[in-house]
């Protein structure tokens, strides 16, 4: 950089042709990446797994530095914060007492109604070992991976509410896509009113509510929880509260602060795929009516052997053995005829049970 400017070397050959080809290759890469967004996922996970020990070691000092940085501003408002926290604590104690009473009442009502209890969700505690806040990607990295049964799609929460979901998992680490990320879209329910919507991140601190019904009426302060539609996320996870964006739309002030979260839970939730009902649970059989036998003349024509007691491929079979019930789905069914053979007597039993 003599005389403040750089000495320029003249390259050999014509670089224009390779440049055009390379630009074309880059465009192709973008298009291929659009079709296959997980093109580099494996390489990325390998790099993160490789960096895992270093991230673990650095995590402590970084966390301390973060706390120190945050504490600088808080020093001047300790007294006010203390007063506010005391007041909030007193209010929360009142709410806690009310919650205990209400919880008992709900359990009593559920028992009376034979309600199917909520599934017990298994969870893994994980620590945040890295954060990546790029202009078009907001993620965090957790120290739990495939070895801990952390899988893509699982919800990540902290004590306040939902933070995001895992979108990539390596052997020892997982990448979490935050609710605020541009790529994040999850189905939510807004209470009261049970309004369904899609929570779409746009890299702002407050994601927006999309796909709202035209007839839906919202107001600031309404509670937003996960709806569980699609079976990927458990229903009822607290997410945030509705706020108006001032342009006629609605956004959600998140309960959880992803920037401050250090220890999070990965919820293991996977709704079992629906199975065909047993013959005894079919509406006709359950109602005590005998299904009409198909005309015998049609049987040979259709090419299906119509022997009594055998079923063709289209007839649902009663399960040979009882489906193993996991602890996560240990829900006592009110209908007791699930594993019983199709018979009018079984249908009668189920009716008396109900």
């Amino acid at each position, binding site marked *: *950089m003599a*005389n*403040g*400017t*750089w*000495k*320029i*070397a*003249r*390259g*050999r050959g014509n*670089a224009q042709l*390779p*440049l055009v*080809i*390379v*630009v074309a*290759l*880059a*465009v192709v*890469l*973008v*298009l*291929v*990446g*659009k079709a*296959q*967004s997980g*093109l*580099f996922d494996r390489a*990325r996970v390998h*790099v*993160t797994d490789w*960096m895992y020990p270093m991230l673990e070691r*650095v995590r402590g000092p*970084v966390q301390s*530095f*973060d706390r120190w*940085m*945050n504490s600088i501003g808080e020093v001047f408002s300790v007294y006010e914060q203390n007063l506010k926290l005391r007041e909030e604590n007193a209010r929360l104690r009142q709410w806690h007492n009310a919650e205990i009473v209400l919880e008992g009442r709900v359990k009593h009502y559920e028992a009376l109604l034979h309600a199917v209890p909520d599934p017990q969700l298994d969870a893994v505690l994980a620590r945040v070992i*890295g*954060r*990546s*806040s*790029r*202009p*078009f*990607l*907001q*993620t*965090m*990295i957790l120290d739990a991976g495939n070895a801990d049964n952390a899988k893509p799609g699982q919800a990540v929460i902290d004590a306040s509410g939902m933070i995001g979901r895992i979108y990539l998992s390596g052997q020892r680490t997982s*990448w979490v896509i935050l609710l605020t990320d*541009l790529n994040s879209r999850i189905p939510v329910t807004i209470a009261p009113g049970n309004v369904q919507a899609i929570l779409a991140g*746009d*890299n*702002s601190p407050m994601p927006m509510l999309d796909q709202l019904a035209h007839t839906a009426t919202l107001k600031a302060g309404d509670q937003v929880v996960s709806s569980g539609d699609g079976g990927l996320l458990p229903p009822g996870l607290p997410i945030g509260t509705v706020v108006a964006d001032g342009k006629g739309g609605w956004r959600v002030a998140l309960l959880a602060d*992803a*920037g*401050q979260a250090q220890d999070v839970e990965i919820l293991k939730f996977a709704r079992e795929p629906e199975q065909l009902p047993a013959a005894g649970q079919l509406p006709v059989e359950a109602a005590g009516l005998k299904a009409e036998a198909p005309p015998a003349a049609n049987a040979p024509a259709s090419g299906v052997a119509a022997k009594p007691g055998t079923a063709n491929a289209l007839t649902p079979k009663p399960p040979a053995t009882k489906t193993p019930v996991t602890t996560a789905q240990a829900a006592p069914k009110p209908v007791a005829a699930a594993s019983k053979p199709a018979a009018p007597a079984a249908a009668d039993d189920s009716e008396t049970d109900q």
Partner: protein
Amino acid sequence: MAFAERSQAGSALRALGRQVPLISGFFCAFLSNIPISLTGGALPPPLLALVPIYFWCLVRPDLMTPATTFAIGIVEDVLSGGAPGLWTLSFVLTYAAVARSRDSFAGLSGLGAVLGFSVAALVACTCAYAITALSFWRLPLPGPIVSELAMTVLFYVPTAMAIGAIHHRLVGPLRSDV
């Protein structure tokens, strides 16, 4: 015999020296994508990989070729976790823009050099923004990309100094090769 050995060692050293821009680009991409944020994710990391691309595109374009830029862009894409090809295309287009006005950019010094790099970073960030907008078919918030641009320009001077030192120690002695 000794002359031949020395010649072999010299050519090996030259071959290694020719890879310095590529290795520096990879290292800068790795450095800026270490998933550690001292600001709790409030500020994005700078695009450090753009500095060696800009520097050697002006100083030694025979070493920082479009293919080298492409490779650095891929590493940036892999490590940053964004959409595949986003930074690859942005870097290559920025390279094309800088290479086209090479004489103007290389003549800048002092604050002008920083402004020159700012223009290059602006091209890269604008490309990334446009690609993302086309990809999602809606305009993302400009705030995060503006922060990225600001951080990149802020970190330019120390990074360019380090790159300059590497150039003078490792790449400069190979100048007779040009």
